[in-house]
């Protein structure tokens, strides 16, 4: 045994009871990973010390050559751009009472606009440019889809899988934010209203 082993032997009791400072503990751990004799002595006191060599495992040789290339091929062009789309749910914030009232009114209007025309006219018509035109008589599902295409900032249609006759609409409200020297731009969505509409509803 070398000088390192003598030192490790002195520290072994404190090491096994987790009383060493980080630097010394790290040094003992690495020594036990490499030194069979010291490891044997440590394992006699604590059988888990036979696992010490796991501390120095490295990426196997067979994986090393392509490791970076495979990562690089999948990196977005610039860092800081999250992969995939973050949750589409807007952050719920406290809403002034006036805004909440307007939301409720808008939701009721949308429901009426979507449901009432269906009772009378299912023919296809010019796709609505805005949600206000949703009552033009377009078939229920197509109408909503067209509406979302034409007004992507206000309504999104989320089709419920396996439930053809149930439509889920997500309506997001934005506050216009002043932009110096340019047109007002919408803020990120400040709230979201989800409407679940039964297409088969017989009024």
């Amino acid at each position, binding site marked *: 045994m070398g000088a390192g082993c003598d030192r490790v032997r002195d520290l072994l009791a404190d090491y096994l009871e987790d009383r060493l400072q980080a630097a010394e503990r790290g040094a003992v751990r690495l020594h036990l990973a490499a030194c069979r004799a010291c490891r*044997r002595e440590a*394992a006699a006191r604590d*059988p*888990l010390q036979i696992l010490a060599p*796991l501390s120095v495992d490295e990426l196997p*040789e*067979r994986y090393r050559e392509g*490791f970076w290339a495979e990562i690089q091929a999948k990196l977005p062009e610039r*860092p800081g751009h999250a*992969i995939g789309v973050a949750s589409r749910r807007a952050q719920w914030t406290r809403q002034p009472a006036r805004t909440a009232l307007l939301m409720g009114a808008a939701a009721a209007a949308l429901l009426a606009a979507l449901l009432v025309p269906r009772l009378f006219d299912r023919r296809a018509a010019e796709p609505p440019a805005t949600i206000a035109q949703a009552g033009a008589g377009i078939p229920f599902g197509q109408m909503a889809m067209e509406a979302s295409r034409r007004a992507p900032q206000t309504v999104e249609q989320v089709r419920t899988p396996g439930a053809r006759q149930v439509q889920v609409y997500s309506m997001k409200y934005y506050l216009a934010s002043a932009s110096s020297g340019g047109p007002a731009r919408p803020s990120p969505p400040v709230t979201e209203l989800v409407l679940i509409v039964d297409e088969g509803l017989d009024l």
Partner: protein
Amino acid sequence: MDERSLIRLSRSGDRSAFERLVLQKRDRAYRIALNIVGDEDEAKDVAQSAFIRLWSVIARYDEALPFDPWFSRIVVNLAIDAYRRRQRIGAVPGGGGDPAGGPTGRAAAQPDADVELMRAELRSVFRDVASALAPAQRVAFTLKEIEGMETEEIAQVMGVKASTVRNHLMQARRILRDELRRRYPEYLKDVTW
């Protein structure tokens, strides 16, 4: 170039710097993933995914905090997901062996073959006994006993209190000791490696 400089350059989009950061952290990321997931191929995939994820979120890293615990959290979360997927499909973490690293695998042809054989056998033993641990216990044990992290750092990685980490460690050690004594008594009688 030091770690801090590599991180700053990576944030600005320097892929060469990011590659060097990957090389610096590669073995540790792989090791953490391996000891949680229990499969070498899966661990390699997890490590790569962690670096891809790192590139996407590195702008959020607070330089006032140590990097390793912050990055370890990414690795651990991905490894836990992989471990649970394997549980759902019935893949036993310790089952199937390690084709390239097992005692009869390619390891025998490499230099220091006896050392590599020993390590491969040890990995197999750990996979086997660690299969008795809950995921949180595996994580705590891996980060403390194999990676040498401080309990408070582990608590940050796991998003729990330090007392919870200590509890996980106590349970993990007890279970692993029992499993070693029960399944591998010959290894404990005479530590030949």
